[in-house]
C-alpha cells in the first residue's frame, strides 16, 4: 500500500507485550493456512490414489509406510502429527471465535482463559490421539 515514508509508523507492533490471545489469533491463521494447503493436498492425493485402483493405492501406502515394519515413515508421521495438531488448534480456536462472535468472552480473564484452553486442549488431544495410534501399532 502507498505510504509516506516520512510519517512515523504506529509504535504498537513492537511495544505491546505478547499475550495468549495474540498467540492464538496468529496460530488460527497459521494452522488454517497449513490445513488449507497441506491438508487439502494430502486429502486430494489420498482420494485420487484410491480412485486409481489397487496398484495405485498400494504405491501411495508404500510411499507413506516402511517396508520392514509396516509403520508410518518419519516424514509422513511428522506431517500427520502436525496436521492433527493444526486441525485441533484451528477447531478449538474456531469454536472460540464463534463464541466471541456472539459478543461473549471479552472480559480480560475470560478471554485469556479461553485462549489458553484452546492451546491446552489441542496439545493434549494430539498427544492422546497419537499415543493411541502408535501404541495400537495401527500404521
Amino acid at each position, binding site marked *: 500500500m502507498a505510504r509516506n515514508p516520512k510519517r512515523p509508523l504506529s509504535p504498537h507492533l513492537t511495544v505491546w507485550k505478547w499475550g495468549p490471545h495474540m498467540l492464538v489469533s496468529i496460530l488460527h491463521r497459521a494452522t*488454517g493456512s497449513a490445513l488449507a494447503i497441506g491438508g487439502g493436498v494430502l486429502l486430494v492425493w489420498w*482420494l485420487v490414489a484410491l480412485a486409481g485402483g489397487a496398484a495405485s493405492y498400494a504405491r501411495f501406502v508404500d510411499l507413506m509406510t516402511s517396508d520392514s515394519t509396516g509403520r508410518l515413515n518419519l516424514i509422513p508421521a511428522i506431517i500427520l502429527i502436525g496436521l492433527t495438531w493444526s486441525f485441533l488448534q484451528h477447531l478449538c480456536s474456531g469454536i472460540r471465535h464463534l463464541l466471541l462472535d456472539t459478543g461473549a468472552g471479552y472480559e480480560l480473564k475470560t478471554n485469556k482463559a479461553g485462549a489458553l484452553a484452546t492451546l491446552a486442549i489441542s496439545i493434549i488431544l494430539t498427544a492422546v490421539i497419537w499415543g493411541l495410534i502408535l501404541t495400537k501399532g495401527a500404521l
Partner: protein
Amino acid sequence: MGNGTSIGRVRGLGSAHAGVKHWWHQRITAGSNILLVTWLVVSLFRLPLDSYKALTLWLSSPWASVPLILAVISVFYHLRLGLQVVIEDYQHDFTRVIAIVLLNFYAIGGAALAIYAILKVAFQGAVA
C-alpha cells in the same frame, strides 16, 4: 462511512457489498466443518488405512461417500474464503489478483478432483 465519491466508486474503491455474505458463509462452513471434518477424522482413525479393500467397501456406502463429498465441499469453500482474507491482508498490488485467481483454481480444482475420485470409488463398489 458513506459510499465514497463518484470517481471512487468508478475506480472500484469502497464496499463491494459482498462482505456480509463472505463473513456469514465463513461461519456457516465453520459449523459444517465441525460436524463433517470431525466425522472424517474419527473415521480415518478407525479405518485400516493401508487396506484398499476396506476403504473401497467403506466408500461404497452412501453413508460414507455422501458425508465425504459434503466435507470436501465445506472444507474447500471454507479454505477459499479463509485464504482470500490472508491474501488480502498481505498482498496489496497486482499480485493480489494473481494470488486470488490461483486460490480459486486450487479450491475449485482440488474439490473437483476429490469429488470425482470419491464418486468413482463409490460407483465401482466394493472390490471383491
